[in-house]
């Protein structure tokens, strides 16, 4: 199981939104900073931190950060 807070910190770092209060239930595609580059950066961060590569079509199914964390945990 990965550390949820650590994941959230890394996610905010990638999107450069360290000063925003967001929770794990956030639908991250609705964030103003979310775009195709953010998507690649998040996939890269997850690969870096957890050695898990989430394919594009799998990632599409994940709506909230909780779901992303769930997916990472299922791959560990």
């Amino acid at each position, binding site marked *: 199981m990965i550390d949820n807070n650590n994941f959230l910190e890394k996610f905010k770092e990638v999107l450069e939104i360290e000063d925003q209060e967001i929770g794990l239930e956030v639908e991250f595609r609705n964030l103003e900073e979310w775009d*195709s580059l953010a998507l*690649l950066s998040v*996939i890269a961060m997850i690969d870096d931190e957890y050695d898990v*590569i*989430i394919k*594009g*079509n799998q990632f*599409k199914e994940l709506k909230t950060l909780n779901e992303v964390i769930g997916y990472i945990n299922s791959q560990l």
Partner: protein
Amino acid sequence: MSFLKFKNIKIVGASATVPDNKVFNKNSPLFDNHDDYNRFFESTGIESRYTVGNSGLCTSDLCVDAAKRLMKAIEWSEDSIDCLILVTQTPDYVLPATSCIIQDRLGLKKNCYTLDISLGCSGWVYAFSVAAAILESGAFKRAILLAGDTTSVTKSPLDRSTYPLFGDAGTATAIEFSQEFGTTAFDFGTDGSGFDSIMIKDGGYRNPVNEKSFLVEQKEDGKLRNDLQSILNGAEVFTFGISQAPKSVKQLLSNLDLKPDEVETYLFHQANRMMNERIRTKLKLETNQVPYSLDIFGNTSSASIPLTLCHAKNDSPSNGRYMACGFGVGLSWGTAYFELDNAKILDINYI
């Protein structure tokens, strides 16, 4: 496992030609402001590209220039060349094969073997393996391998996720039969389930060109383009590249019983910096082992590996052990190992 190994194959030289039209991404209207551009640049590393623009230049024109200069530099006469292979996905015509036209334009002999290969980012590696297989027995002595694309014309100018990434280039690589020269080896792979990750939907025979093909609209992926312009599913290609490219390189190293640091130079297909750096670090390679050309030339599809070789010639030796890995449209990937011994690598030309 798909492992091929040859011992009589030598790369004699390589050259590359690009259109003399440099486009700086920082001036692109696709970016709202400087910060917006900086974010793009930090991830992709692509500052500029050379594109054909409205010049009418085709892949064949760029490749013919590269081939003529190379043949002159290595003193290969037209009638000494037995085999001409062109790898491109932007041919002159639907038919005939562009390599036939180039045989005539280069003045090669009429009993020349010519072949077009339709592959992109992995194309140079595949075409090199075809040339190697044809030459290995010594029946054919000399082959010219042309690899080029004018990919910029296939992208929608309204799509910031593709348009600023691609540049145009044509290259030539001279390969000959050379008894017991050294080791040339390959690893290959294909995953056609990802065929729609990089794709032009209309204009072939599955979906012939029709009036709707020209309609620019927002597609299901949110991008503005028409169906004669290329789809690029960035996330799909990104995850594919960072998983398959390092695997393929590791497999080939292991088949050859080599350690990563026993190969001096790694030439990767130039996709974008974030992706390529990830591949580099996964393989634990030093920065000086991995030259780049994408900062100046962008992603040049099948031309990227030989273009990078030409671009980096001052930084890395044209001797020693090389690994080249291409990955992308298909989805298709391939890795080549080869050794250079005083290969003639020419300066890039601008036409």
